């Protein structure tokens, strides 16, 4: 068997601030196969975006990757020189951000921005760049792409802008696209459209996708596997169906219980009590214990990852599987 597309092992990204060490990503491991869609889900501030930036080598001081390994088709990315990382970004791994209103440059035309993104990895003429821009914009469902090429971002709606951003991410046919909540800032109807389009794009182009979201419902519609993140760690992972049916970690169950589709009609949704922890001052042991209904003294020590390679969790008192 050839090497896995992406193999992340014990990745830790910490920020060394005046107030102390912020463990934004701590001991994160997962795999991604060619063409696979995985979802990374967790509350705000759980370290999802930082995991994505770490994969791209985009962690700026005072942050840095303090340990672990990221292998792309067998090639180690941690410790690569800046220029080598730059050559990977956009060409082998691309990223789409949450807010399309802020990601595009307001003072450059769409054509210029796409040309710059192409030029980052290959020299092409303006005419060629325009043709490629039209192709890729048409591909992401932007109507009259060639007429709108010379428009500025402010002339586009949020959904259109996000399509342009997705088009830029697709330009070099990367192996992996990291989509960091790309639909959160959009209207619900546009959200659904873009979700469906992204799904068929990655299928058609054979790309792998890491879909980041705080919304378990969105992730479960997109991904075949789910990673649940809490306090900078992956606390549970497995095939989507299995995680939804048989959550083993109490945080995952909390997330599931707060889904509207799961609640019995007429019943109030059950939110997880308490607030997500600050990554600069994580509770010792299982970071979830202050909010966990099942917590006891042993939860003050960190639980090991248990289970098997494709279905695991970090909990001293895992929920029992309903169906085996």
């Amino acid at each position: 068997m050839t090497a896995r597309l992406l193999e992340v092992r014990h990745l830790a990204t910490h920020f060394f601030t005046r107030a102390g060490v912020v463990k934004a990503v701590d001991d994160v491991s997962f795999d991604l196969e060619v063409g696979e869609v995985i979802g990374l889900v967790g509350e705000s501030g759980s370290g999802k975006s930082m995991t994505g930036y770490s994969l791209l080598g985009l962690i700026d001081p005072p942050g840095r990757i303090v340990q672990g390994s990221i292998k792309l088709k067998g090639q180690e990315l941690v410790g690569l020189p800046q220029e080598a990382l730059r050559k990977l970004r956009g060409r082998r791994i691309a990223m789409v951000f949450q807010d399309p209103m802020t990601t595009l440059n307001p003072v450059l035309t769409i054509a210029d921005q796409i040309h710059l993104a192409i030029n980052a990895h290959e020299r092409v003429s303006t005419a060629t760049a325009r043709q490629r821009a039209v192709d890729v914009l048409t591909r992401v469902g932007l109507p009259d792409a060639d007429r709108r090429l010379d428009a500025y971002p402010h002339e586009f709606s949020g959904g259109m802008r996000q399509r342009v951003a997705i088009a830029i991410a697709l330009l070099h046919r990367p192996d992996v696209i990291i989509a960091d909540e790309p639909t959160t800032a959009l209207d619900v109807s546009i959200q659904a459209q873009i979700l469906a389009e992204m799904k068929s794009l990655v299928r058609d182009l054979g790309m792998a996708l890491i879909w980041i979201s705080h919304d378990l419902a969105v992730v479960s519609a997109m991904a075949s596997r789910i990673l649940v993140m809490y306090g900078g760690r992956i606390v549970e992972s497995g095939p989507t169906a299995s995680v939804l049916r048989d959550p083993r970690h109490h945080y995952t169950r909390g997330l599931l219980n707060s889904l509207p589709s799961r609640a019995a009609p007429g019943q109030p949704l059950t939110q997880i009590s308490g607030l997500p922890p600050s990554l600069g001052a994580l509770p010792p042991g299982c970071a979830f214990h202050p909010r966990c209904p099942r917590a006891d003294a042993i939860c003050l020590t960190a639980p090991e990852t248990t289970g098997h390679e494709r279905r695991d969790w970090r909990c001293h008192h895992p929920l029992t599987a309903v169906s085996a």
Partner: protein
Amino acid sequence: MLGFLIQRLLQAVVVMMVISALVFIGVFAVGNPIDVLISPDVTQQIRLDTIAAYGFDKPLWEQYLAFLERLVHGNFGRSFVFNMPVLQLILSRLPATLELTIAAVAGATLIGIPLGMYAGYRPDSPITKAIMGITILGFSVPTFWIGLVLIMTFAVWLGWLPAGGRGDTVMVLGIEWSFLTLNGLSHLFLPALNLSLFKLAMMIRLARAGTREVMLTDTIKFARASGQSDGTILRRHVLRQISIPIVTVFGLEFGSTLAFAVVTETIFSWPGLGKLIIDSIQSLDRPVMVAYLMLIAFLFIIINFLVDIAYAALDPRLRARRS
């Protein structure tokens, strides 16, 4: 666009009217020039005749109306001191100040922006510390003192550059220019450097603050995520986004230097407008003061207009709002 132009033109006329009145009244308040015009030992009759000839005996509003009437005919009056048409006098001094101002402001901008962008891009590097040192110097040491130090160092001790004057000039378009001869350039260098240090400090600070802010935005993160190099990002993404405040300050500095390069012009005996206005205030040369202040107001209007056009060129969102 046409509507915009007409609107600006009307605004300019109104502003100039208001300025002319303010200036006229202001200058009137500074003092009576009659004692400068005639020697104290002339007869009372001559004194009264002179006052009548200049119209100083009329009420202020009548003098103002007379002034406006002459203005409409392009006549700013004659200088009491130089006894020549004021417009001609001012225009003969303007090129010297203009070339000094352009050299100082453009030089400060062209050098200050790259230095400031570097400082914003690498806030912790030792080079940045050195750059920021320059800005502290530029802000805190008075211009006249730097001017004297420059003369002491480069003219007196090293003897590399002349200490004052315009040097050789060339006539182009009927105007004398120093920057077109090597000798003229060597005369221009020190006063321009002297004038530019404060502006350089300001441009560095502006570019640095803008760069730091823009570098943290999602726009830049997204450009980096697509593999664009830092050089491309600074040149193509950051520069455009920080240029609006820079253009604003450029315009303001250009106008105020044109108007008030007095200190430097005096130190370097640069025969420009600054020296002329100081002399005219001392000798209560009313027509020169009035014409000078109106010229400055007019230049500010032109500069503001150009700055507005630059805004529209730089930011498509402003363009959209205006049309």
